[in-house]
């Protein structure tokens, strides 16, 4: 601590960091998607129980317990030494909505993964991102056993705004997931540009 070794060499690169959220119902393939493009790590977050959790989290006998542990998936994609993209799989259960606010703040955008057999499972995520004006893309995970629908049918079923991209994908395939993520970034760029315009005019 006393003898500073300033000759240690060049200081480490301090990267610009961005995050994209991966949302959708339970079992829709969020973990698979994150794992297809990054080394996946489980992340624990201990959060204060809120009203949202009260009907579910029975704290009888442990009234002093005010926090709950939630695990979520998290992956890092090093795009360049000075540019890192993080993916966060949002907790699927509704009772962890309070975690979303933290995840969503500062997010570049989101993927809402949808399964056409259970489209209603992603309504909540679509609502959430719409209300908070976070640009998102629908990724229709094409399960082998599910009937395939054209993107326009999915768009109508989800009552999406015309500018929200709907991308068919396979969450297991790296190339496919890359396309989805590129679609998120492109949509975020267009979204930001449009938003700026409406602010300035």
């Amino acid at each position, binding site marked *: *601590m006393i003898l*500073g070794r300033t000759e240690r060499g060049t200081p*480490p690169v301090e990267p610009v960091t*961005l*995050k994209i959220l991966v949302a959708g119902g339970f079992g829709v393939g969020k973990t698979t998607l994150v794992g297809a493009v990054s080394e996946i790590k489980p992340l*624990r977050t201990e959060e204060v129980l809120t009203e949202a959790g009260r009907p579910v989290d029975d704290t009888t006998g442990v009234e002093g317990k005010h926090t709950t542990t939630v695990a979520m998936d998290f992956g890092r994609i090093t795009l*360049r030494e000075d540019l*890192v993209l*993080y993916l966060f799989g949002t907790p699927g259960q509704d009772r962890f909505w309070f975690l979303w606010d933290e995840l969503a703040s*500062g997010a570049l955008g989101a993927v809402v993964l949808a399964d056409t057999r259970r489209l209603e499972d992603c309504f909540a995520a679509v609502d959430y991102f719409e209300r908070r004006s976070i640009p998102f893309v629908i990724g229709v995970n094409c399960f082998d056993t599910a009937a395939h629908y054209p993107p326009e049918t999915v768009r109508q079923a989800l009552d999406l705004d015309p500018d929200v991209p709907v991308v068919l994908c396979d969450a297991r395939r790296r190339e496919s997931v890359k396309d989805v993520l590129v679609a998120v970034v492109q949509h975020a760029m267009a979204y930001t540009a449009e938003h700026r315009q409406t602010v300035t005019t």
Partner: protein
Amino acid sequence: MVRPYAMTRGRTSHAVQHRLDLIAVVVAEPHVDDPEDDHSLSPEHVRIVEMCRDTPQSVAELGAELDLPVGVVRVLVGDLVDEELVHVNRPVPPAELVDESILRDVISGLRAL
């Protein structure tokens, strides 16, 4: 097994943390040499400094790597900021990314994966 908040001596928040974002990047200060010589630091504090010395790490990565809840990492990082052993770079909100070229770089980086 150690109870996570034992490492923070029971503290669940820290004055400087201001809810450090999960992707805020922790960077060891270059003047920090051997944090293990500082006996006021816990082994977890020391590990964080060491991990961030060569490669700055996000709060989320520190949590995953040390297998600690994010809340604990925030408190520990707050201590290290107080001690001026690390500094924290807050992420730029996307709306303030004035330079669109960063997003173009993200796209070309993704395609090149």
